[in-house]
């Protein structure tokens, strides 16, 4: 028994089965990411003034990663087109670039994550005076990297201070804080450029709350990590499928070329969707 229209298109619908399937699947994916984006909007609109973090992500790296993904979208189309023209070698080459881009994207994303896990915010019980360029201002929230026993620790929380019996630690403060406006941030960054950080010694007893930039830091990072991790999972799965078709599954090109081309097309459709999600993610999370 064979299922009809697995390879040929059905005349009245003009489409083969798997293509219907993948479009339906993508529709459900739109709803999945749509719900997360809606949650982002609702949480951000509902946040108290001055509490929604911005300017904490690395925009140049994010931009570069966007370019990497867009490149992979182009090569996916080129590889499918090459296959349609019967040029298997060219297909192999383009799809190899796609896979490299996927790996590159995930690598860069991991680097960004790692950076966040050792970057902290400290909420203080009593405000301290810090230097901002030439001015001295009073703040009760500080951003920066922690130094303790010569290490830059990961994943510390308020509880860690008690558990590890940390009496005090050093903070290398960032020049900016998300409570500033974008203009103030740009100004503070320009001021701080080239100058050495001034370390602050903080007593654990003065700390109201301590959190790395992890999901529990704020609803902003909760949304950031949920959306980007789910997206990264999609990149990983998409790359795995493309790799399977490209590598071990490539024998089908000899036995059933039409079906093979369909497979490449289907995986390409999914890949474009994954890229499209990122095109939305990048401005929403990095720029807005």
């Amino acid at each position, binding site marked *: *028994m*064979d*299922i*009809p*229209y697995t390879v*040929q298109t*059905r*005349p*009245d*619908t003009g*489409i*083969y*089965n*798997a293509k*219907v*399937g993948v479009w*339906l*699947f993508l*529709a*459900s*994916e739109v*709803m*999945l*990411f*749509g*719900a*997360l984006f809606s*949650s982002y909007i*609702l*949480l951000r609109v*509902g*946040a*108290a003034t001055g*509490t929604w973090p911005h300017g904490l992500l690395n925009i140049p790296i994010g931009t570069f990663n966007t370019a990497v993904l867009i490149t992979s979208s182009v090569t996916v189309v080129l590889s499918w087109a090459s296959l349609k023209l019967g040029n298997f070698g060219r297909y192999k080459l383009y799809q190899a670039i796609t896979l490299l881009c996927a790996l590159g994207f995930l690598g860069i994303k991991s680097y960004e994550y790692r950076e966040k896990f050792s970057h902290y915010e400290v909420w203080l019980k009593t405000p301290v005076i810090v230097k901002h360029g030439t001015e001295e201002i009073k703040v009760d929230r500080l951003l920066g990297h922690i130094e303790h026993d010569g290490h830059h620790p990961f994943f510390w929380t*308020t*509880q860690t201070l008690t558990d590890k019996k940390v009496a005090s630690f050093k903070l290398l403060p960032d020049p900016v804080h998300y409570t500033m406006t974008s203009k103030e941030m740009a100004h503070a960054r320009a001021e701080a450029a080239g100058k050495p950080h001034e370390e602050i010694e903080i007593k654990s007893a003065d700390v109201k*709350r301590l*959190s790395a930039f*992890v*999901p*529990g*830091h*704020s*609803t902003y990072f*909760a*949304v950031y990590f*949920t959306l980007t991790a*789910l997206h990264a999972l999609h990149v990983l799965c998409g790359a795995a499928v493309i790799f399977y078709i490209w590598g071990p599954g490539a024998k089908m090109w000899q036995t059933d070329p039409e079906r093979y081309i369909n497979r490449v097309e289907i995986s390409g459709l999914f890949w474009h969707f994954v890229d499209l999600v990122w095109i939305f993610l990048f401005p929403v999370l990095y720029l807005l």
Partner: protein
Amino acid sequence: MQATTHTAPHVGDHKPHHEEPGFWSKYIFSTDHKIIGIQYGVTALAFLLFGFCLMLCMRWQIAHPNQVVPLVGPLLDKFLEDGKGGIMTANLYNSFGAMHGTIMVFLAIVPLAFAAFGNYVVPLQIGAPDMAFPRVNMASYQFYVLGGIVMFVSFFIPGGAAQAGWTSYSPLATSIATHGQAFWLIGMVCLINSSLLGAVNFIATIIQLRAPGMTWMRLPFFVWAQFVTAFLLLLAFPPLEAAGVMQLADNLLGTSFFLPTGLAVGGKLADISGGGSPLLWQHLFWFLGHPEVYVLILPGMGIVAEVIANNTRKPLWGYKSLVYSVLAIGFLSFIVWAHHMYLTGMGTKISAFFQTTTMIISIPSVIILTCLFISLWGGSIRFNTPMLFALAFLPMFGIGGLTGLPLGFAAADLHLHDTYYVIAHFHYVVAPGTIFALFAGIYYWFPKMTGRMMNEFWGKVHFWGSFIFMNVVFQPMFFQGMQGMIRRMADGGLNYTSALHPETIGGLSQTMMSLHTVILWGAVGLGLCQIPFIINVFASMKSGRKITSDNPWNATTLEWQTPTPPPHGNFEHAPTIHRDPYDYSVPGAAQDFTPQNQAKP
């Protein structure tokens, strides 16, 4: 329309070789839609029974608070942490309540109504050799089983199963310090993946694999119902998956998606960032939750339509109205969800919007019911067991639907919200509604699956018993609810009775409390009435009356034009469809039914 479909290259193209697959590949890892349908059916019926038993324990606790549960008391004592001494503690009551809802909705009714019947019947009715993606179909069933196992195992972990209700409202769901909720969420993600794969498969199959001549308006109504249901599952479930992931992060990673600033648990300020929104969970949950109601009912309506057309021996009245109504329900069901949330303080303007859409969606529902009622008019009705269940569906679903209207009005809902009235309302829709339709389906398609009829006498015993006791169980709840009895109370409202607290104005009267006993024994009776059914299924499978024709009900639709039971690949010759689905009693025809694949003279 012939021109559109003449090139189905492989339909029914039987290969001469017949390798008999082994037990494992035939029954456990099968890709045949009929086997998968039966797998779904058996598993879902087991969960239906299990969910019912949970409810029996709860009804005992409500009627006889803190007394040892008869029969199962020792089991509770032995296996469950919160069941020490065989008594339903409040924690155990809460987890049974949460799991009763979850199991009934996600592990019993949806898999039975959508996956089991849909898998078995839809490809046959559209003249397809199988589903479009047989292996995806198998994966769908495996995800379902995995989800079921996770849910089941959660009863036995330390702290027991989830306790925050089947709706799992935050922050309650996050502040209970056990792992039941995490299991619930992981189980739900598996079940959502399962229904996603199923939905993609159903829609692709119906779009792509209709046999030549099977145009859209020649589809049996059951196929239409399943088609719309699949779209609801496809588009409404993902937001709950997103919500589930977020609540899982709240539980395990310490995020605050649904936890507000300043949340205190047990009198202590929670160590969280705050800034989340409990209302967000409710929106995401009910965005699934309401279309889910139609996922529960539409396949039931489809089955009833098939059975009624067959047993009145005349075409369905208003086939096109039925089809357009079911499509309208599909669209509208996405914009009514917040009528579950009138009391959250989301605002009167939003309430007014959802109140309006809710009233609008009742129109297509009433059209469907009306068409089915009018279909009976002037028919020579055969009162066999499937028809009895289908007939009972009409008034029972009618009661369930109409009692929903007061809940849809924000003003009336202020009084009725979260009372037993709500329980009675949606159980009338799902229990004597959908479940009766499912029974109708089982009795109706059993001969196609097994080649034997189910016993009519015991079928009728099953029907009348279920019909009476269903009403004994659910009718009193309307009165209790209107008197202000709140749901989810582990002592059945004992602490709010005027007998215990004479000083309280409006305390629950003794009459209302004594209805608990009526309901308890009604439920026990309902349980006993299922015994003939269970025995009937197994006995008829072995020694039921053998059917002499492939079409014992003299039906017109394609599933009866196959060998019995249908072989792998379904049809001996690729069918071509020449006529409408319900050509019963066509004037001048040789018989009172004309199959869809019979050529016009």
